[in-house]
């Protein structure tokens, strides 16, 4: 169990109020018909599954129900950064 800060509610709440919503910065291809099966598979199924500091999406499911992005260590569970959804992150370490 850890605490997560919701950037919309501006409150730190227990993690079970939130749902994990997968790796961050995976954009849906703009023209799915035009890309190869391999690229489509990469978008749908393949993941970085990074061990270390990892950018991911969370949704405040039992709160404001909005999505935001979190940089969290998958080794220690330490929350390193929380930003509203759509924030440009310059160093997108993957």
């Amino acid at each position, binding site marked *: *169990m850890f605490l997560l800060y919701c950037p919309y509610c501006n409150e730190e709440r227990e993690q079970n109020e939130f749902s994990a919503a997968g*790796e961050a910065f995976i954009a849906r291809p703009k023209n799915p018909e035009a890309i190869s099966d391999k690229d489509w598979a990469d978008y749908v199924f393949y993941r970085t599954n990074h061990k270390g500091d*990892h950018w991911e999406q969370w949704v405040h499911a039992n709160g404001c129900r909005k999505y935001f992005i979190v940089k969290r260590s998958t080794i220690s569970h330490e929350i390193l950064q929380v930003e509203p959804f759509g924030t440009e992150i310059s160093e997108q370490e993957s």
Partner: protein
Amino acid sequence: MQKKYSWYSLLKAGLSGQDWDQAIPLVEPKSKYDIIIVGGGGHGLATAYYLAKECGIKNVAVVEKGYIGGGNTGRNTTIIRSNYLRDEASSLYEHAMKLWEGISEDLNFNVMFSQRGVYNLGHSLQDMRDIERRVNANVLNGVDAQVVDVNEIKQQIPIINITKNARYPVMGASYQPRGGVARHDGVAWGFARAASMLGVDIIQDCEVIDIEVEEGRVKGVKTTRGDILADRVGCVSAGHSSVLAKMAGLRLPIESHPLQAFVSEAMKPVLHTVVMSNAVHGYISQSDKGDLVIGAGIDSYNSYAQRGNSQIIEHAAAAILELFPIFSRVRMNRQWGGIVDVCPDACPIISPTKVEGLYFNCGWGTGGFKATPGSGNVFAHTIAQDKQHPLAVPFHIDRFTTGALIDEHGAAGVAH
């Protein structure tokens, strides 16, 4: 030289002050092997064993970053069954089940495989329809399975709560009589010992830190105990598969999650079989030592931390207490988490990769223990012949590109 275990060796060692040979010799890595298996869990050790035994390749090393039996092999809830819905999955798990049935004799090591039966409970009419469908599919595939009604369950498991007033009343179950449990770390020890007796080097405390790839072909691995060359490398590292894949410049359709389990203090025999429930999400058996072994679900976020959340434990405990109110005063002894590699279709990847000579056996997710001998067996043949074993063909990594997924997730009484 290690000797076979027998009644004579037991008597001799007993009379001579327990003077046993080292079961798994501690060896230094050589500079080159034909095949390196990365990961000394049950699946990796089984792979090495079958490479030596069935494929005639004995110049094999298993490199393990920890100690034998200290990873996921010693962290699961030891349940073994093969009642999967899909033909591809049930053939693979039934292959494993047949190997389990002779494994202790084959390995000359008692892995305490106990076919005490597995019940998968149904709690709604839809559950029961799914169970009937799965049981019929099992029977057509030659897997033993039957539908049992609630009265029969009560007769077999008198402590179960079958009241109709429950939030999720027990309505029936599927039953696989050949299912059961095995001593999980014993399985790792047994395979490790049997493989090393055939000439395989089991190298513990040896973490792979890089995989050497040259011109699209694997050359060997860098480890914390030096570089080791090899013609072929098989990665069987469960939760850390993506980490190894990255070393070779690959990505996998896998995410790692913590999966938790816990055990009670040891008690007199009270539960003689395995009871699983997908709907309320808990599964339980009693070990030969007497403790109740209870499995929970995965945490939904990625983690490599080998620990999970308390509410997941609470959820599983609530499910078990609903089914077995008699356990409400039982004290829990230990709780732990393991890191599982979850595939989008909850089925494994047993496959070559685009790097020549590099193979992956991963993605077993929350249910790999039951497949240990079968997984090792088909992976050994896949590596030895550089061609997938027929049972492994549907589990090629390309299925995520072609779309031929094996839709087993939630379809097979799997508990996750």
